[in-house]
């Protein structure tokens, strides 16, 4: 089942990329389409942050993950590279769990 999801997702993403190479540019030249396509990842990524950090199945829970996110956000604000942001978040959650 996971394999089917992996392969179907990969196929869909490839078709999207290829479509851009094959369709005539004027079909997608509309600035409104561009704007919507620019903002869609913003909305989805914000939701993914929430689901990943607060979600537990169908419930919401504030735990070590939220503390990790705050620490990661602080690292981002200090313009830390991506890997540092991720490691800071993981280390914060790990330390809190070890202390608990």
């Amino acid at each position, binding site marked *: 089942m*996971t*394999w*089917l*999801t*992996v392969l*179907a*997702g*990969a196929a*869909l*993403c*490839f078709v*999207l*990329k*290829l*479509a*851009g*190479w094959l369709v005539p*540019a004027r079909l*997608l030249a509309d600035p*409104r389409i*561009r*704007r*919507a*396509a620019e*903002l*869609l*990842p*913003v*909305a*989805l*990524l*914000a*939701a*993914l*942050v*929430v*689901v*990943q950090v607060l*979600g537990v*199945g*169908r*419930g919401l829970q504030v735990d*070590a993950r939220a*503390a*990790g*996110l705050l*620490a*990661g956000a602080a690292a*981002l604000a200090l313009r830390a590279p*991506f*890997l540092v*942001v*991720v*490691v*800071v*978040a*993981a280390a914060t*959650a*790990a330390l809190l*769990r070890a202390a608990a």
Partner: protein
Amino acid sequence: MRDAVGIGLAVGAYGLSFGAAARAAGLSVPQACALSLLMFTGASQFALIGVLGAGGGGLSAVAGAGLLGTRNLLYAVRLADLLRLRGGRRVLAAQLTIDETTAMAAGAPVGLSGLGFWATGAAVYGCWNAATLLGAVGAGVVDTTALGLDAAVGAAFLGLLVPQVRDRSALGVAACGAALAVLAIPVTPPGVPVLLAGLAVLLARPWRPRP
């Protein structure tokens, strides 16, 4: 060329996090590697494992990855105009159509777009896949929760989000997307909150003509 190698290394660091996060979400090492080899677009890959890790169904996972992959379609339109490729090379170029290669091709001096695109594509593809394998294998030998890897995935999404919030309306869309997710989590199956959050785009009224 040096820029391409620099980008490749930065992407490698990100690939390590992806490989580890995929294992934390319950994927096997071959599944994590297949995503990097075949899907090859970071945000969509993270979205797919994020939904699966939260217990979501395959359909919402695929839909989330596809929605995040729509921007590659617009990148491809831009690249097709810059590189003017013909035939089968477009299929290869399509697989390499991502944020980094588009930025390098578009930012290269006149006449060097092709070099920027292919060099960056090769560097990123190699580093991304090698790093995914390393991260996935590495995560298999440790306790991912004790190491806080679940918290790392949330931070990874935040790291992807922040550079894309360039103005007030994008900030509003992000806040609204997050709020929709909070409201939807208790009342919809896992995976669906992320798709519903896409409606937040309507907040910015993209159909309105802009100055």
